[in-house]
């Protein structure tokens, strides 16, 4: 049974691609067979974050247009046996994606026995974003704790509830999860940032993960290593927890409160 998960947000720059990369790695690390698809036609980034940009020969649009087979376009991850990347086309525009084309690719992945298909949505609410969410069973809505991101996520949640195949066919709708990124407990405490509770209340959804603000994310992106694989990092642990929750394990939220500096930290400036 394949589950299609869309990672979306409406707003740009909140961490959709970082999240797609880390969740897909986390699921593959649990032994699941995972494909992660970049829907951002014309502005592809997932290949960079996954560190496979030099291995992209064929892309999603090539598969849809029949220039190559799906097998030729799927890039096997070098770190995880069961993880595959389908890159977006950089040279086409988003009109190259069609509902039927996307359906065909997803059906083939399902037939191929993938456990999870992650669809990395582009920002905005246009064609690419629409198609990324259209066939989804579940949605991870990535949100930053600030008002504009929350409003855009609200808009996206509205679309998830109406503009998806599940919504149209009345198959119980898409299961939605919230994932907060760039969360800084210190700034929440200072009243500069919305808290987890605020966001939860505004959007009325359960939170599947809270990813702390960290310089590790940028470092990992530049290195082409999904940040979840970066050992000894709060971000990696937070994403690992989110993967567990996706798989149904109940875990308390971590990294949501300001760390009280211990005696030694205070003595030596932590």
């Amino acid at each position: 049974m394949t589950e299609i998960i869309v990672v979306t947000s409406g707003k740009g720059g909140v961490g959709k691609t970082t999240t797609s990369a880390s969740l897909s790695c986390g699921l593959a690390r649990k032994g699941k067979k995972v494909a992660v698809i970049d829907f951002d036609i014309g502005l592809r980034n997932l290949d960079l974050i996954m560190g496979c940009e030099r291995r992209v020969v064929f892309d999603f649009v090539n598969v849809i247009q029949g220039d190559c087979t799906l097998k030729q376009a799927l890039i096997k991850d070098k770190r995880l046996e069961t993880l595959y990347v389908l890159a977006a086309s950089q040279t086409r525009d988003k009109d190259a994606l069609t509902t039927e084309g996307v359906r065909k690719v997803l059906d083939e992945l399902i037939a191929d026995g993938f456990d999870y298909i992650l669809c990395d949505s582009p920002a905005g609410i246009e064609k690419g974003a629409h198609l990324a969410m259209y066939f989804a069973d579940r949605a991870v809505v990535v949100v930053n704790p600030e008002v504009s991101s929350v409003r855009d996520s609200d808009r996206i949640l509205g679309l998830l509830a109406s503009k998806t195949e599940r919504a149209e066919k009345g198959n119980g709708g898409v299961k939605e999860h919230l994932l907060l990124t760039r969360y800084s407990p210190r700034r929440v405490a200072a009243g500069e940032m919305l808290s987890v509770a605020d966001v939860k209340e505004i959007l009325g959804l359960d939170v599947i993960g809270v990813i702390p603000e960290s310089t590790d994310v940028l470092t990992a992106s530049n290195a082409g290593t999904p940040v979840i694989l970066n050992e000894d990092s709060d971000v990696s642990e937070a994403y690992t927890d989110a993967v567990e929750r996706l798989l149904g394990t109940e875990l308390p939220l971590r990294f949501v409160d300001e760390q009280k500096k211990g005696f030694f930290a205070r003595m030596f400036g932590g």
Partner: protein
Amino acid sequence: MNATADAARIAALDIRYGQVGLLQLKLRSTDPGAILDELTGKVATVPQFFRQTPICLDLAELAGEPDVAEMRGVIEAIRRCGMLVVGFAEGPASAALAKAMSLPVIAGFRPQNAAPRTVAAGVPTLAPAPAPAPPPQPLPALIHAQPVRSGQRIYARDRDLIVTASVGAAAEVMADGCVHIYGALRGRAMAGVRGDAGARVFTREFHAELVGVAGVFKVFEQLPADLAGQPVQAQLDGEELRFARLG
């Protein structure tokens, strides 16, 4: 004093080379009566065009070689129609006749040059036989002076492509001929897109993701140390794509 000084400076003549349009008259008969009849009819339609018009005679379609007396009759008939024979078109029969009649042999008539002139004049029967299609002229290379950005594609159809800037990662440059990149190549370059196995890819700074010639591709997951950042050319050697440092 001034007048003589000025006069001394002016040469008696200048010799210059120049091209002029010239009507050709292709003879199929040397009968002056027949020529006069046909020409009179044609001249009557556009008399201004034929008045004092220089004519080059083409003898290639005559059955036999005409003698000097015959030719004098022909030239006289043409003159009476208002035109002046100035020479013979180059051909097997022309040389001796031209010498005997003190007329030049005019060489190097290119059919594609002569045809439009006569056709434009509205006298298709005077035109030489339909000119063979001129050999295809190679198109000049497509020159692209701006950086080719990620996601851009440039295709030079039927010609070479010259990029005087860099080609970014995930950008694509293609040509039916060769691809020359005078900046860095960080994206994809394909030469001989429609099968020319002799086409090549050149770059001043090699960081390519993918290079192809005539459908044979190589993906660079890791750049070979001896090529990275170097001036490189790629060419097909049989079925194999070879890369070598330039210079």
